[in-house]
């Protein structure tokens, strides 16, 4: 059994590195709020480095229930997340160049931990925004935590949380990495 990665696995790794780095430019996660007055829905779309959507309108509505306003400034992650992803991609490329199986194993572990941390981070913010409500707000609401994935109801809004293209690319990256390790194992 060779300690080096096969040619095929190396190619797969290069592809996964490209996919991972390009995920920076795609939305990762989003929420859509739908209400009778907003049948077209209001959006929060999160990229690794920015937020998009009808943020100002959502903030304007959130003040009724005393939710803190969202802005890119309120999420420090957006400043360093692209570098982390960029760094990870470089590590993948390095692994491909060295064709090191051991490094790949470490990378996969790192990836798993990072992914879980990312999910925890989103959850932490959802808890923070949904439970730390201004007690003097005009409409009093029980604290709530929207799910990371799926539907929820807040006042007159139905929220849909979903993962988007960026996270799909990461998923594929992860699968490719595991697959290239598995290919090597088989031999």
């Amino acid at each position, binding site marked *: 059994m060779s300690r080096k990665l096969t040619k095929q696995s190396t190619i797969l790794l290069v592809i996964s590195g490209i996919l991972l780095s390009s995920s920076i430019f795609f939305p990762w996660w989003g929420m859509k709020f739908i209400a009778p007055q907003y049948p077209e829905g209001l959006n929060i779309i999160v990229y690794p480095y920015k937020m998009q959507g009808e943020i100002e*309108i959502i903030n304007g509505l959130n003040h*009724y229930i005393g939710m803190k306003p969202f802005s890119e400034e309120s999420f420090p992650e957006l400043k360093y997340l692209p570098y982390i992803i960029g760094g990870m991609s470089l590590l993948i490329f390095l692994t491909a160049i060295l064709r090191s199986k051991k490094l790949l194993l470490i990378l996969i572990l790192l990836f798993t931990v990072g992914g879980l941390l990312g999910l925890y981070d989103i959850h932490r913010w959802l808890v923070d925004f949904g439970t730390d409500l201004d007690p003097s707000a005009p409409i009093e609401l029980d604290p709530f935590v929207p799910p990371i994935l799926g539907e929820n109801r807040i006042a007159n809004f139905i929220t849909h949380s979903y993962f988007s293209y960026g996270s799909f690319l990461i998923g594929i990256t992860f699968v490719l990495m595991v697959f290239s390790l598995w290919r090597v194992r088989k031999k």
Partner: protein
Amino acid sequence: MKKIVTAISGVVIGFLLATVFFADFTDIGPKSVADSNEKSNSEKVYVPFGEKDEYYLFASGGHSGQMFIYGVPSMRHIRTVPVFSQDSATGYGWDKETKEMLGGYTWGDLHHPAFSETDGDYDGKYMFATDVGNSRAAVMNLETFTVKDIISIPNTSGPHCAMFVTENTEYMFLPTRFAVPIGHKYEPLDDYSEKYRGVMSAVTFDEKNEKLGIAYQIALPPWSYDLSDAGKKMSKDWAVITTYNTEEATTNLEINASQADRDFILLFNWKEIEKMVENGQYDEVEGQKMIFPEKHKGAMYLIPVAKSPHGVDVTPDGTRFIASGKLAPAMTVFSFEKAFKAIENKEFAGERNGIPILNYESVMEREANPENALGPLHTQFDDEGMAYTTMFISSEIVKWDPNTGETLDRVPVQYSPGHSVAAEGDTVSPDGKYIVALNKIAKDSFLSVGPSHPESMQLIDLSQEKMEVIQTAPVNPEPHYAQMIKADKINTITVYPKDEANPNAVYSLEDTRIERKGNEVHAYGIAMRSKFVFDVNTERPDVIEVNEGDKVTIHLTNIDLDQDITHGFAINGYDLNIEIQPGQTNTVEFVADKAGTFPVYCTNFCSALHQEMTGYLLVKPKN
């Protein structure tokens, strides 16, 4: 290769089987339900919720000074746009900009809306209108349905037959209904023929700055000018206007202006006049470049027409113009080509007030005289060039063929139609489909509202062989004239874009402030769901405190950049009320000449907490 072939044939066979077993062939052949011939009238005008009308109808509001916007075919009233009158529903006439535009007038008599045109077709960018009451012209932007500029027209009185827009919106011509001395000076009516003039203005529109202007004026004879139309295609450099009171009567016009057997159509070449102005062939009068037809010859001609004519309309192909004799019950078809030839050959039958008269016979092509049709006023056209003329006295619309003069169809309306408007019916390419009769009387048609009856508009279906009235809508006074435009030609905005360059705009709470300069107070505030913030750094950010006699300017920006969230701002007891659209900055200016406590509040329902969107204006009394 073999694999691919197998795969493809598999898919094809599967598809075929699916078609054979599951396809529904029952909808092949004539569909009875969707056939428009079998639709009831209510189905023809019913626009289900969620769908939108096919046309916008812009109807002049006459002496309401407003423009009414309807959807066709539903005939639903969508909006009233104030143009020449104050309107407290929209705060029009109290904010600084609209107050200045209205120039101290509180009403107007809005006539003859006209769309801006490109190549003789509506381009959906602007709408123009004139004010017969106070001699003004206005332009409305069709992205926001708001008036952008109003100008007063000097030397003229009551531009009734305008606006009429030339093929590429080069000019809007505004002839006068009432002859007056130039500069509105006092002159005895005994000197009417010498001292009075029926001045026509060539109004221009600067699209970049959204400003109207006057290029020049023409001191026409002291007659009344009634209706007009600009040429199209081969006649695009020309325009026609009907006149009455060529008798130059000065009293009891009902009798005295109906004496002459013939009045005139004024035919003029605006390209030639433009050249004259370029060459300095004009007089400088009252600050205007004034052209006197008796001095500056070669661009204006008179054509005799049956007495007291009303409408004159150019056919879509631009080859003819049709005049209707209000008192002489016939429509006359004139030929531009014949007129041009007569002008070229100088075939004149004398002169009137220094303007050459063309021979009636050498310009006229035919007269159309539908039996017992009385009081022909205006003509509109369909996609096949057929003419539709409203009959004021016999209360009907008559369809006829300008090529033969033959009457094709007639439909009664209730009652007394003045103008009518066909779908894009005065452009180079009318749509056919619909015509709307604008009726002056609605006697017995609706629930009574006392002695004053509503007026009415009736929608007539032109898509079938016989014309048919399919909808009737009561309307506010007075539907004078209207234009109908295909809905997809209009592209509105829903929210004003942020204008960071506007020094009066404030988009963030931190920038709100109240500044005092001597006895002037300037507030730069925000309206947002559901509060006013005039100065965020004070104990009560929703309060403005001034001294009696201060000049107060309040700039408000609606920072709800959200569709349909309009805020109002009224000062209770101070006769002030303005509106601020999403993203817009608006300004109100007033002298705080009443001491006391005056609540301020949002007039336009904006949210669940709209009722709480209030504050105070405190005016401290002088000692």
